């Protein structure tokens, strides 16, 4: 069972509190399957509330998705300004019209500087971070997009609500029964 090779750290984009469950997604902003998974993962976050934290890492398939790379860098740029999740969400919500002008519009929507954005893209300031995510994912056994990891193990089921709930509930159950977690 492929395991996450790069542990979650302060360099990651994490949403939610530290809890028993970490759900990590390697995603591509232009991938329709990631687009479909987006609302489902939000539902999962809501469902598990304080028990689950969500982590997103980049895995752009640049040869087949022409806007995947720039979208990823745009989100990282927003992240440097403290607005990663807002941008991540906006991009997925606007996936059907993903383009350079759309991304610029989203930058403006979040009140960020278009000049700084243009500079960041031109200088490829965030390309290394995106590539680092990608390679870490490849080494961890990412086999397409989206690839999900639950507590560091690759989840092989479909990115749908019910299968995820079954897997997460099982993890929570194991934890409840494990004497190591009872103080």
């Amino acid at each position, binding site marked *: 069972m492929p395991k996450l090779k790069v542990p979650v750290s302060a360099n990651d984009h994490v949403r939610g509190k530290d809890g028993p469950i970490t759900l990590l997604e390697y995603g*591509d902003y232009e991938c329709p399957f990631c687009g479909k998974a987006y609302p489902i993962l939000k539902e999962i976050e809501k469902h598990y509330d304080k028990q689950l934290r969500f982590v997103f890492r980049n895995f752009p*398939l640049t*040869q*087949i998705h022409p806007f995947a790379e720039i979208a990823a860098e745009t989100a990282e740029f927003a992240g440097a300004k403290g607005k990663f999740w807002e941008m991540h969400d906006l991009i997925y919500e606007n996936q059907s019209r993903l383009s350079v002008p759309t991304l610029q519009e989203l930058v403006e929507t979040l009140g960020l500087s278009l000049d700084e954005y243009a500079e960041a893209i031109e200088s490829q300031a965030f390309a290394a971070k995106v590539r680092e995510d*990608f390679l870490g994912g*490849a*080494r961890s*056994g990412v*086999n397409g*997009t989206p690839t999900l990891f639950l507590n560091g193990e690759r989840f092989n089921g479909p990115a749908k609500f019910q299968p995820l709930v079954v897997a997460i509930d099982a993890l929570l159950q194991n934890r409840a029964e494990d004497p190591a977690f009872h103080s």
Partner: protein
Amino acid sequence: MANLLQAGTVAPDFTLNVTPDQTLSLSELKGKPVILAFYPDDWSPVCSDEMALFNELLPEFHKYNANLLGISVDSSWCHLAFAENRHLHFPLLADFEPKGAVGKLYGAYREKAGTCARALFVIDGEGKIAWSYLSPTGENPGADGILEALEKLSKKETVAKLAL
């Protein structure tokens, strides 16, 4: 199906069409590591497509001086269209006639389905299989096994060079 060829075995040579009028033999690539990726069909959905994933990793494979070859039973014309559509920058070989012959040679052919299995091989510069893996049906194996095998090979080479 015959068993998947294991590490330590000499990789059987073969010659297959890489375009409708050109062939490629495994022996032509001796001297550098070769990654053989057997897969069932061209045209599987993009986001979970093994070939698309490996395509993104070509720069990494090249860091190890490795060549990547994709092999399926599809014809060369089909491969050409598929490679163009997905912007693949590595050769796809047609294990077309006799159908699945090379797949069978490597223990990577599914008789019932009539297609190659998802099987990966990393072959060293001397033509020996350094690592092989058969993925469960329907599961895209990812590239982690390949990268680890290439890393091991490169460490071995470094040690060997130091010993000279």
